[in-house]
């Protein structure tokens, strides 16, 4: 086995050259393992962490990867930038969560809206979208869902529509920044794109898409907007200031969060990777918040981090045996210099696939392919924009079905626990409409910005 592994790796090292010499048996086995793991992840027959780690283990056994390739290579191994950026942001969120700032904002918004359901929904969705751009989507919806249930209870409306709208807003808002959605973190690391690249290229579109979403929501969730004037008192008598239990902690957290954002904006100038900024911010927050390790590690989703590692090793093994390289060449041949057609395919294809499978494994496997395409373009702006097509498709496509993104699954869980079960189709009915509208908007945006005047 060791001998086989060594041969294949030697072949893998030249796989980027003209010759493709990895043993056919290993290539076939590697593809079979990858597809098998993907099926398990998509169907949830096996827990996704077990599927990714199992897939990675088989890749090692067949000799498609080894410790060197899996742990120390930027092309074929675990992308530690992604892992540590996620870890840093999860630690920051663990502390920010304890401040009660989301409860404060949501109740403040409900009072400003004077108990009017649509105004409340619009304000809660705006809070969710902005927070999702700065923090992880799953955490954002976890923080905003309980207070949403409270507010809906107080104004006497059913909360399902509100919760669904918030998840959709969260996935749209998360599209705007490098740190907003895990697919963006992967793309940024693979493509070496900065925080500001995301802000400049995606945020303007996301603002427009979000406004369109809010207008659409007025119609989509119209049945949730029964106004009960007699219930307004129950909203207005709530005291949002009591949600802030520790004002000192709140001030310190906000200062550190602000510093982290400034750090992200300046990270290229500072020559610091986003992962380093996030870890430094997390460290600073741990020190100034004086929280215990159990508290500041509370929101760290170790299974998610391990899932990413297994995934990277699996995809890296495919790169190693030359499968991705061959697919990339085929894609480059197919695309030629018609990058708009490629962007169109990538946008709609990614949106469709991300609705069906988790968009994280999808983007992790697509990123090396898109990387080949962009490199073949040799710096042409139309080629570079393929990254934005991938990000928009994958992020917005996460809204399409109840299982399209992790945040969707989480909110369905909270809703069910609170006695408001939302079925797969109940969610998907709304998600499909919003995905279709936002992706159809993204298409002319890509065309006008990157291709029309090229």
């Amino acid at each position: 086995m060791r001998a086989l592994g060594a041969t294949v790796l030697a072949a893998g090292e030249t796989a980027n050259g003209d010759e493709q010499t990895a043993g056919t048996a290993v290539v076939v086995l590697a593809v079979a393992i990858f597809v098998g793991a993907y099926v398990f992840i998509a169907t949830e027959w096996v827990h996704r962490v077990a599927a990714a780690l199992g897939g990675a283990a088989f890749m090692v056994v067949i000799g498609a990867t080894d410790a060197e390739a899996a742990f120390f290579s930027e092309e074929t191994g675990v992308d530690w930038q992604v892992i540590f950026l996620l870890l840093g942001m999860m630690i920051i969120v663990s502390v920010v969560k304890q401040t009660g700032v989301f409860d404060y904002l949501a109740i403040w918004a409900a009072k400003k809206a004077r108990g009017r359901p649509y105004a409340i929904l619009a304000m809660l969705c705006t809070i969710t979208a902005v927070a999702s751009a700065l923090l992880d989507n799953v955490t954002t919806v976890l923080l905003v869902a309980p207070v949403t249930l409270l507010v809906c209870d107080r104004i006497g409306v059913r909360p399902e529509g509100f919760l669904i709208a918030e998840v959709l807003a969260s996935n749209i808002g998360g599209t705007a920044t490098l740190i907003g959605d895990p697919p963006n973190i992967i793309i940024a690391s693979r493509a070496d794109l900065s925080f500001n690249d995301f802000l400049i290229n995606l945020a303007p579109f996301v603002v427009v898409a979000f406004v369109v979403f809010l207008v659409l929501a007025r119609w989509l969730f119209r049945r949730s907007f029964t106004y009960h004037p007699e219930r307004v008192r129950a909203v207005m008598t709530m005291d949002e200031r009591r949600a802030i239990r520790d004002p000192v902690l709140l001030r310190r957290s906000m200062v550190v969060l602000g510093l982290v954002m400034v750090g992200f904006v300046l990270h290229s100038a500072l020559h610091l990777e986003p992962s380093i900024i996030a870890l430094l911010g997390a460290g600073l927050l741990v020190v100034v918040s004086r929280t215990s390790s159990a508290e500041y590690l509370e929101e760290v989703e170790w299974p998610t981090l391990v899932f990413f590692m297994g995934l990277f090793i699996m995809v890296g093994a495919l790169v190693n045996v030359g499968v991705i390289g061959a697919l990339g060449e085929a894609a480059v041949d197919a695309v030629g210099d018609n990058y708009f057609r490629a962007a169109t395919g990538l946008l709609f294809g990614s949106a469709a696939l991300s609705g069906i499978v988790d968009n994280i494994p999808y983007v992790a496997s697509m990123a090396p392919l898109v990387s080949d395409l962009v490199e073949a373009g040799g710096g042409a702006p139309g080629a570079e924009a393929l990254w934005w097509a991938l990000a928009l498709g994958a992020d917005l496509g996460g809204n399409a079905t109840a299982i399209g993104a992790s945040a969707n699954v989480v909110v369905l869980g909270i809703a069910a626990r609170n006695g408001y079960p939302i079925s797969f189709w109940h969610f998907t009915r709304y998600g499909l409409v919003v995905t279709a509208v936002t992706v159809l908007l993204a298409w002319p945006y890509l065309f006008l910005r990157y291709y029309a005047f090229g």
Partner: protein
Amino acid sequence: MRARDLAEQFPVVHLDTPAMDASRLLVERTLPGLVVVDHDGLPLVILPGSQVLRFALPEYIEEDRTLAAVYSESDADAFCQELRGRTVEELMPSRQFLPKKPADRPIVGPDANLMEVAAVMAEQHSPVVAVVDAGEIIGVITVHRLLGAALPQ
């Protein structure tokens, strides 16, 4: 001393007893918990008073305890309204936490010694156990009664 020597009369509630009535029973009789019996009349589970409170609170308060603070005083006073129109069955822990085999029920036989009674209470975090003889409840033992009998004079 045996369990039958300590057993005393104790009201039981059924799955379809209104939650409000069951809670009032706790207050009026200053009981440490409710003995819930199944359709065969056998004790299924003990709902300690704290458990009844849990079900009076909305689930979202349990997910985010900070939210309890934002209610106005008068609205907070009225939190037990949540129990209105609900039955004991709805206050029960979800199915996965309910006893699956007889040994998991808060039950002792009439011949159980005090240590056996204490072991069942401790293991099930239950302030009450029922003494059952041939499928009939002959009484219950509360934690107060057990400790009263077992503590050195």
